[in-house]
């Protein structure tokens, strides 16, 4: 790793922590991954709140500062992190990040799912049709609140960025993708399918041909349906649905085709998935599912990132031992009380760390071939480039 000078932010404690970081045999070599020109797309996935956005941004910055031309697509970044990356303009295109040191460059953007959807409609339908679609209440619901649209649009955007990168001689050579804060890590892979099967579904096909084809075959049944919907929702509704469906019809094929292309891109060996997890039972369980799912989909997994692990400054003093020692000091003078309380502090940390390590060990035992990296929990939120650099160092095991 190039030893470029960096501003080291002030910290409350000097981090000569052990136990949580440092390269080892089964360690994920993040720098090798980022330096490899064959790595062109990095996808960070995992369940909500585990640090996907932070990890994506930290990897992108690190790769850029090591010389790559990087674009990072973030989704819902924390406000201050977004500001520090200059993500204040919501124009849905990548903008250069100021303050990047070293030879490479970094562009960043924040996904605007509705806008991405609107732009797809505008790009693929006639001006007249596009206007009709954009104004339709069903389209508006679909593009702003359908569970899965965000995932779908993240894939659309990745496809666009990837296409753009190839168009220019000095275009991006690495795209880092964050994934939406899904309830489950797997939503990310399933959402596009859910959306396209909905758009391709029976009801929509029926609506497209009310007077002929399947509708006529169902005859009376279809009449019951329409009159019931009119009764329940008012007559306007069916008309809206029909307008939406008719206008959208020509776009269906394109949607499906592009989503298949992006899917193939995700299977390409130039793509690397990183599964991010917090050292908690539920997040690690999700991570396991995800690792298995990626294998089933033949998507290339680079490794697991366990984020926000607890650290202790002493690693050969266990939780029980510290708690017992603390009790032996009870009832002494002020310094004795301090020592006893410090032992309690240590016991708490050691207990958490022991539990976390059990979880990581269990994951490794069931997935022995998956390399992993551990990132310590920092004292504060990660909200500027310096914070991202620290996370980058931790990811690479160089802190």
């Amino acid at each position, binding site marked *: 790793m190039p030893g470029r000078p960096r501003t080291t932010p002030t910290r409350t404690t000097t981090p000569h922590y052990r136990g949580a970081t440092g390269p080892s045999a089964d360690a994920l070599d993040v720098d090798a991954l980022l330096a490899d020109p064959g790595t062109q797309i990095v996808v960070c996935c995992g369940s909500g709140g585990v640090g996907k956005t932070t990890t994506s941004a930290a990897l992108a910055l690190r790769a850029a500062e090591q010389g790559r031309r990087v674009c990072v697509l973030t989704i819902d970044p924390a406000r201050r992190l977004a500001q520090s990356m200059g993500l204040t303009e919501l124009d849905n295109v990548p903008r250069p990040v100021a303050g990047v040191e070293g030879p490479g460059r970094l562009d960043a953007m924040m996904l605007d799912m509705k806008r991405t959807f609107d732009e797809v409609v505008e790009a693929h339908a006639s001006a007249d049709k596009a206007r009709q679609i954009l104004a339709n209440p069903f389209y508006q619901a679909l593009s702003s609140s359908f569970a899965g649209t965000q995932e779908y649009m993240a894939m659309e955007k990745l496809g666009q960025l990837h296409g753009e990168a190839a168009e220019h001689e000095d275009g991006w050579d690495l795209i880092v993708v964050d994934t939406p804060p899904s309830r489950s890590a797997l939503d990310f892979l399933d959402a596009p399918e859910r959306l396209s099967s909905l758009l391709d579904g029976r009801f929509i096909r029926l609506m497209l041909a009310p007077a002929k084809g399947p509708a006529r075959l169902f005859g009376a049944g279809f009449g019951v349906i329409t009159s019931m919907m009119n009764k329940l929702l008012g007559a306007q509704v069916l008309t809206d649905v029909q307008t939406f469906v008719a206008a959208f019809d020509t776009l269906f094929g394109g949607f499906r085709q592009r989503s298949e292309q992006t899917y193939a891109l995700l299977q390409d060996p130039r793509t690397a998935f990183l599964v991010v997890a917090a050292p908690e039972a539920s997040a690690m369980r999700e991570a396991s599912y995800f690792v298995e799912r990626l294998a089933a989909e033949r998507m290339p997994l680079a490794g697991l990132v366990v984020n926000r692990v607890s650290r202790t400054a002493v690693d050969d003093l266990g939780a029980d031992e510290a708690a017992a020692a603390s009790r032996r000091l009870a009832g002494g003078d002020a310094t004795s009380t301090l020592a006893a309380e410090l032992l309690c*502090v240590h016991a708490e940390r050691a207990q958490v760390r022991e539990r976390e390590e059990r979880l990581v060990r269990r994951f490794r035992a069931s997935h022995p071939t998956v390399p992993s990296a551990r990132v310590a929990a920092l004292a504060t939120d990660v909200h500027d480039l310096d914070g991202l650099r620290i996370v980058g160092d931790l990811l690479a095991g160089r802190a």
Partner: protein
Amino acid sequence: MGATTQLHVVTGKGGTGKTTVAAALAIALADQGQRVLLCEVEGRQGIAQLFDVPPLPYEERRIASGLGGGQVHALAIDPEAALLEYLDMYYHLGRAGKLLDRFGVVDFATTIAPGVRDVLLTGKAYEAARRKEDGRFVYDAVVMDAPPTGRITRFLNVNAEVAGLAKVGPVRKQADAIMDMLHSDTSRVHLVTVLEEMPVQETLDGVTELRLAGLPVGHVLVNLVRPALLSEASQQLLGTDGVEQAVADALEPSGVDAGHAPALVEEGHAHVARQHLQDAQHVLLDDADVPVHDLPWLSEGVDLGALFELAQTLRDGKVV
């Protein structure tokens, strides 16, 4: 069975403890002898996982008993089942309902028809809250493990949501009735958070949004609060010169290697820093003109016993 049914909606940033707190709230009410329905609306089977029982069907069943003789029933509300039930209940559309399903209408209506999904979910909670037997309400309280803060106002504002869709008809009427209940004094929206920057900011934004929409905000429930392990006196000592040597000497009778003193002092500083950060976030909540109640971080994780423990602090804090 009581004279009214209270509705408690529990929201919060993802992963902060919505399901856990909703369950503890339900138990706290059952501890007071109430008959409670605990429901979830996101199809995640979070309640079943928490209580370590098989996945819940679309059917109310008893899941726990309160100390005071009350009971907690649980229900996983599924929008498709709710739609069919609704049609059947009000229109006796047994056969036609199946037809709707066959034509893919149920799927369509519950996934992209704007607001319909939410009306069905809140509508089912409304139905349970208004259900009577022998002239009395079946439940004293309904507790809902609701969608996260970012979506909650929209979720509860069913009226505005279906406005673009159903301008007349029974869906509209249903939405109006739900709105009346949600805006009334029998409902409360509680927000679960942890003492970190992003969740606290989201909570404050959420409170503002809910109030703007006229929805009654209950408590901010601060979850995973870490105890301060260093007394005021110890914190002061920690900042003095030569503290490492003093701690090393004091460790002598404990049997712990005196060489660990610098590391223990370092961990002490980190602990103080973390408590300060926690406190700073807490101040932001305290300034927000909304009742705040703390729930402790339980280092052993959450099992049924822990839920009763959390329930007790909710009662102590007069949240319910």
